[in-house]
């Protein structure tokens, strides 16, 4: 057996596992999304077994259209999950942009601190792993508790806010919990990128009289860019599929309902239209990933090449 054939023997189990649990369901989701959900036919009142649906499952979400009792296509009534699609998209994008921006900025600050040499640095790096190690479901209950009306957050700041019930406070609460949990992870990724930058570059800049700010903006930032972009890409993908925190912390509060939550809420009501929603979700996430890799990723590669040429 040649090396190549043997290598394929080694990688086949992984590919097979991914094909069964990711490949097959994706194909099935696509097929399902073009079929009608079985249920009572609104027009005749008879039970029907589905059949082809064309794009109606997609227009149900994208145009927020439902079928009424006469079989006519109308705007989905308030309260119907169909009427929450664009809100959910907005909430998801809001969570993504705000959490990733905060996590990158605060994470960078943390990484700079953790990169310094001082007593107790190992302790600090261990402490920072704790939020990451706590299961998200536990984090959600913990922050839900801290954000209670009589809870420690209101007490600390002397406020009287209904954090999990009112729309904007609830969104803030979810963002706070997510930033707490994932910033340390971001900081570690950034720290790994920082440590690759050779010390003599800073030394040379210092000799040339560059101030700390100049060194940060002209050396650290450009050299850190590739690592930072990878971290941002990973976190963005994660934030776009956010589910656990809002689903547990603020439960059915529509102000914090993400697309993932909408899919899960829809699964038991109508799996085929839920499939259409998951396909839409996939396309959205794929588009964002493609954009990040294409626009920012290409940029990162160019930065690296420029550096190589400069050396």
């Amino acid at each position, binding site marked *: 057996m040649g090396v190549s054939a043997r290598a394929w023997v080694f990688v086949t189990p992984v590919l097979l596992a991914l094909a069964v649990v990711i490949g097959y369901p994706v194909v099935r989701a696509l097929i399902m999304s073009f079929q009608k959900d079985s249920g009572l036919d609104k027009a005749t009142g008879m039970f029907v077994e589905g059949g082809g649906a064309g794009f109606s499952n997609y227009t149900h979400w994208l145009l927020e259209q439902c079928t009424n009792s006469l079989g006519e296509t109308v705007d989905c009534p308030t309260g119907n999950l169909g009427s929450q699609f664009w809100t959910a998209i907005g909430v998801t994008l809001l969570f993504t942009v705000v959490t990733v921006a905060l996590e990158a900025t605060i994470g960078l600050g943390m990484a700079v601190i953790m990169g310094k040499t001082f007593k107790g640095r190992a302790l600090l790096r261990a402490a920072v792993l704790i939020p990451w190690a706590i*299961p998200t479901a*536990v984090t959600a209950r913990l922050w839900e508790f801290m954000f209670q009306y009589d809870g420690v957050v209101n007490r600390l700041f002397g406020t009287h806010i209904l954090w999990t019930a009112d729309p904007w406070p609830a969104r803030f609460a979810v963002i706070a919990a997510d930033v707490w949990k994932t910033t340390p992870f971001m900081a570690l990724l950034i720290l790994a990128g920082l440590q690759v930058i050779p010390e003599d570059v800073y030394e040379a800049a210092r000799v040339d009289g560059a101030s700390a700010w100049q060194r940060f903006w002209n050396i650290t930032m450009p050299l850190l860019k590739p690592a930072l972009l990878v971290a941002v890409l990973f976190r963005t993908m994660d934030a776009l599929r956010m589910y656990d925190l809002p689903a547990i912390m603020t439960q059915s509060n529509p102000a914090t309902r993400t697309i993932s939550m909408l899919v899960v809420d829809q699964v038991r009501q109508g799996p085929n239209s839920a499939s259409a929603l998951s396909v839409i979700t996939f396309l959205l996430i794929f588009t964002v990933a493609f954009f990040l890799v294409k626009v920012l990723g290409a940029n990162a590669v160019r930065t690296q090449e420029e550096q190589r040429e400069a050396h």
Partner: protein
Amino acid sequence: MSTNVIEQTANPPAPQPVPWSKRLASGRVYLGALIVLVWGLGPFYWMVVTALRDPAYTFDNTPWPTHVTFENFRNAFDTSRGNNFGRALGNSVIIGTATTVVALLIGIMAAYALARLTFKGKYLVSGLILSASMFPVVVLVTPLFQLFTDLGWIGHYQAMIIPNISFVLPMTVYILASFFAELPWELEEAARIDGASRFQAFRLIMLPLAAPAVFTTAILAFIAAVNEYLLARLLSSDKTEPVTVAVARFSGNNPLVQPYTAIMAAGTIVTIPLVIMVLLFQRRIISGLTAGGVKS
């Protein structure tokens, strides 16, 4: 003037006082470190403090526990309100362990091939595995729910273990591959020259060298598998639900009042073993995480 010069040469130079700019800088570092420390430990500390409070004083908000009691830890295991936390703990161990073992067994081979062998389609394979790690779970929820309903798997362990394996696999492969790539080539070459087959070289030379990496990856895979909630919520039953689902739906005697002290006790019980693992293997975990994150 001249006496001054003599004095200066006669006495060793007095220790220079640390300049204020340096003192300020190190002060700032320690202040920053303190903030980071409070960030990491604060909410976790609050969970433990609340877990130790008498339920009647749930919202006491003193920075230390008032009316200390261990009753909450007993209440967490109380099954009278439909909570089955003890069983859920066992379920999480079963699901986490099974996921980790299988993911490692098949992940090691793929990681070795990707790091050490050259073959056609190598970049396609690593690209596929990377894109799988970014795949949104929620896309798979509906078809998996349907498939497992058809198979009668809902409420059985395999309904959670098999999807989990695939979600943990990409991470496993990437972390292990980056470790394998760093191992010295010479050892393997030497073994090959001495007549070992490629598989023998892998099994007898590379695998023992990679043991610490495998162990690190196992911890990371286990933590990731235990963390899973979305699929478990849909695919588990009362008998197979893991701790994440149990903690999320924890309820008390009064349906309108959340038993937060018991919930925090349950959270503490789940978290303490993970935190101990993290503290013990901190260095390795960080290198594993950053290997999977940055180098891919």
